[in-house]
């Protein structure tokens, strides 16, 4: 039945469903973050809108939509308006290749691309444009500083992130994401690639500009960083992009190191596989929030030093060892 549909329609339907799921997920990730942070700080968090505050995201969305959209007079109007779209566009594009489970006819994804992991990296590397252009186009000093920091930070950490992932690719000897998951049927790569995993989660936090690497926003120093001047829906788009990026890197971590959908009894039961996948992703998201609730922000020079002087050498070392092992044993 599904095969009967033309390919473009199939892709469109898949995309739409995924879009709705991802946006909802974003909304509730946000709520979960507020709740978890509140609990860690002995508060209860949002609890007034709907039962246990479950309608809070809807209220926030409404507020964001109806707030006035301001463009500062000193801003570059074209790029100022373009930047949030770049951010969300690149954030969503990654989902084109992410598989969520394994069905009879192949992985559950919009497109099963050979170079899937490369695609994800290519797309996420574009995400920085949204931030840097937004900061530049706002035409005021705090956004500019935020975006300059963002650019430097993201370039630095992308390097280490890619290096840490190449170890996995070497071991799986494929760049297809479903292929990588299949390659973990014997053992999750978190075991052989533990160092790579550690580097990956650290760089992933940095790539998504989350605490303790949120130098880009840095409320206590830069007001709100790159989106200081944004308001209303445009500000909301940056918000969406940040959380979707969080979900993306969590998905990726699950696929690359935690065996994706695989788990006890998952083969042949795609829904169970999906459940495993979601549980793993949520665990990652919780870890994100947990970090935010615990760690203070790094100083900027330490952040750069850490990236270049610790993570990059470690990732190189990990790659080297993996390459030697793969060359000798496989």
């Amino acid at each position, binding site marked *: 039945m599904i095969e009967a549909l033309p390919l473009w329609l199939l892709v469109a339907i898949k995309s739409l469903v995924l879009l709705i799921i991802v946006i909802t997920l974003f909304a509730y990730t946000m709520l979960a973050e507020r709740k*978890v942070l509140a*609990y*860690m*700080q*002995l*508060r*209860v968090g949002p609890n007034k809108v709907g039962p246990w505050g479950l309608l809070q995201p809807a209220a926030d969305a409404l507020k964001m939509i109806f707030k006035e959209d301001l463009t500062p007079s000193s801003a570059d109007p074209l790029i100022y308006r373009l930047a949030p779209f770049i951010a969300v566009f690149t954030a969503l594009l990654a989902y084109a290749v992410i598989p969520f489970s394994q069905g009879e006819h192949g992985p559950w994804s919009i497109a099963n691309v050979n170079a899937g992991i490369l695609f994800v990296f290519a797309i996420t590397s574009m995400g920085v444009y949204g931030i840097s252009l937004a900061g530049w186009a706002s035409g005021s000093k705090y956004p500019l500083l935020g975006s300059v920091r963002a650019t430097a930070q993201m370039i630095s950490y992308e390097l280490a992130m890619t290096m840490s992932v190449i170890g996995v690719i070497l071991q799986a000897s494929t760049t297809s994401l479903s292929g990588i998951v299949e390659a973990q049927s014997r053992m999750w790569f978190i075991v052989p690639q533990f160092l790579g995993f550690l580097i990956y989660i650290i760089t992933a936090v940095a790539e998504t500009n989350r605490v303790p690497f949120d130098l880009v926003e840095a409320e206590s120093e830069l007001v709100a960083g790159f989106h200081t001047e944004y308001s209303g829906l445009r500000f909301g788009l940056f918000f969406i992009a940040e959380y979707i990026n969080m979900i993306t890197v969590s998905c990726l971590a699950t696929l690359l190191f935690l065996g994706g959908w695989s788990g006890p009894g998952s083969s042949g039961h795609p829904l169970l596989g999906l459940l495993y996948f979601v549980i793993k992703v949520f665990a990652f998201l919780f870890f994100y929030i*947990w970090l935010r609730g*615990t760690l203070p922000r790094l100083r900027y020079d330490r952040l750069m030093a*850490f990236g270049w002087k610790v993570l990059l050498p470690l990732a190189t070392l990990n790659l080297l060892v993996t390459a030697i092992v793969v060359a000798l044993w496989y």
Partner: protein
Amino acid sequence: MNIIAIFKGLATTFGYMFRRKATIDYPFVKRAHASRFHGLHELRRYEDGMERCIGCELCQIACPANAITVIGAENTPEDRHSPGERYAFRYEIDELRCIFCGMCEEACPTDAITLTPRFEMANYTRNSLIYDKSKLLVPAEYGVGEAPHERPGGLPADLGEVARIKSTMEPERGYLATWRGIDILTSEGKTYMPTPAGGELVREPEKLKGGE
């Protein structure tokens, strides 16, 4: 970088998730405020319905936030507001400027202005938070208003009683010298205080804190 410390921190925050929450479901559950809580102002009356405020503007000059505006006028037999000659023709407090420090209450010679425990005064316009006499003055049918906050030594509620209380106070309690916040210090940093017998009592300032 101390990795163990990071994990310790993570453990701490994780543990806190399961502790009892400090939040109170505020509009539905209200906590008792402290007995000396400083909230919204109120202009009190005497038992006979007369306004206590005499429009002397001492609260205005005492106010560190410049939130109070008073314009006095003269009582006439036809239009009498307060006992004595003078009353507050206009009395306004900008509650948005107010820092609720209670200096106005301290400064007031007739205990007319008091800070009540009420604190919910949110509104939609700035103008509505500039309280004039119509909002500040206790309506006559509601009695005389909140009692002023207790001060060291248990101060009188009425200026007319000052003389009586003065005569009953023993000076050792330090009350006289701290009456309405006036400390009379000599150059040695000691407090000069007259006694009813006419002599001087010199004491260390710390001792004045007694009587709380």
